[in-house]
């Protein structure tokens, strides 16, 4: 496994210029997580509309390039998407990391699939898997609880 497969251009770009950073206005769901081993933190905020659409989605956090990129990619991909669809993408993402499956959802653009799949490089770095999955698990927690 080459290091450059872990630190791909897309990941470095999202890590250096994270999208949707901060508290989004009018959020009605949020959840945070923290990895005590390395100190990485993530806090997901989202606004779920009555029609079950995630109209706003953002995050606050600090951590390594992988964890920041992962949170940034998550918000970029799922903002404006339907709740069930977002849960499905999250399941597929977690499956991809855990079981090395491919992401093939029809409703995602090829670009989006490429972006999400760029995180699959962590499969070969077991100590870094949590960095990539933490934001996605936190999204699921946020969806489960209401403010």
């Amino acid at each position: 496994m080459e290091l450059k497969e872990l630190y791909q251009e897309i990941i470095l770009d999202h890590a250096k210029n994270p999208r949707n950073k901060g508290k989004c206005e009018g959020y009605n769901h949020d959840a945070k997580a923290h990895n005590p081993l390395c100190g990485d933190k993530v806090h997901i905020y989202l606004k779920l509309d009555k029609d079950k659409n995630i109209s706003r989605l953002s995050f606050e956090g600090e951590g390594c390039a992988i964890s920041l990129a992962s949170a940034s990619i998550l918000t970029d991909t799922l903002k404006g998407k339907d709740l069930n669809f977002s849960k499905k993408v999250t399941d597929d993402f977690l499956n991809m990391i855990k079981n090395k499956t491919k992401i093939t959802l029809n409703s995602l653009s090829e670009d989006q699939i490429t972006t999400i799949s760029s995180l699959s490089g962590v499969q070969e770095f077991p100590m870094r898997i949590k960095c990539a999955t933490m934001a996605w698990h936190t999204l699921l927690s946020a969806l489960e609880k209401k403010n």
Partner: protein
Amino acid sequence: MEFNNIKSIFPIFKQKIKGKPLIYLDSANSSQKPKMVIDEISKFYETEFSNVGRSVHTLAVKATNKFEETRDIVKSYINAKHREEIIFTKGATEAINLVANTYGEKFIKNGDEILVTELEHHSNYVPWHYLRKKKGAVIKFASVNDNGEIDIDEFKKNITEKTKMIAFTHISNVTGSIMPVKKIIEMAKTKNIPVLIDGTQGAPHAVLDVQDLDCDFYAISCHKMYGPNGLGILYAKKKWLDELPPYQGGGGMISEVKKDDISYAESPNKYEAGTMQTAEVVAFAKSIKFIQDLGIKNIENHESKILEYGLEKLRKDNSVSIIGNPKNRASIISFTIKGVHPHDIATILDDDGVAIRAGHHCCQILHDKLGIPASARASIGVYNNKEDIDVLCESIKKCKKVFQI
């Protein structure tokens, strides 16, 4: 024994990591083991093993003698007055918990103060926190200055009539700062306050003479002294061990057990409940021999040369910030690289076979104070040399390349 070629005594260095020679710069986390220590563990299990201090058969006698021999060796090595002052534990963490628990139970009351420092590893803070919760003790922190040191005046001003324990690290596991241990103990003595030294980082790098220090308690981590994992030592003055209540209850620590009451064994047995780590204790004698053959003074000199070389090289790199600048420093360089998170540094270094630690190193209080969530730490052991530092520095350049800095 010579430092040149010393890696050949450590079997771990025979392997390649990611196709490259292993550059092990994580000894503050745990040190590697020399062949004689590993061999002693096998030899003990193959020819001498039995439980200790219980049966009377030949092997039990052999094993018990070897186990107790290590106690004598440790006693001499740290210059304790009595062999009964050496208690084997599962680690330095357990050693500190033992003191916090037993001393706390007997002597700490609501409002009593325990003085620690902002440099402490969690293992010398969390056990005292339990006393804050259980007994209403107050924990005070001596502040670290910009150099990553704590001077004696900082201790002085935090001591009050209510101070019942001063507990601090011998050497910081983040800044490498060597504390003015003796001076602090002298000051504490004038006020009759007991002192616990967390010697986790101190014991592998510094000359140890507990009678000269006159500390009440000194906690040691054996796996950081080229010894087996799962073993630590508590040195405690005999008067404390006689006076304090037992820690854990079980076999081996009792004198008489009746339905209506129990009396306890004397120290060290009083504090060694249940079956102890046997092969580990026996093999630790070889770790001390290894250190003695090299000479702890020579180890100090060897490591400080490499430390100075590393500090000098890293200081030349503007994107690297070294944490702390203590006047007296041992074996540890914690650093950050602008624009690269420590976790990413550790992954990129590992690709070059360089093993360091990234994170808060169980020192969240200090990292909060420094305003950083984590740092990268290169720590030096007997087997390191200047070439290892060269590889480290090359690999740091690679971090910047990967992150396009």
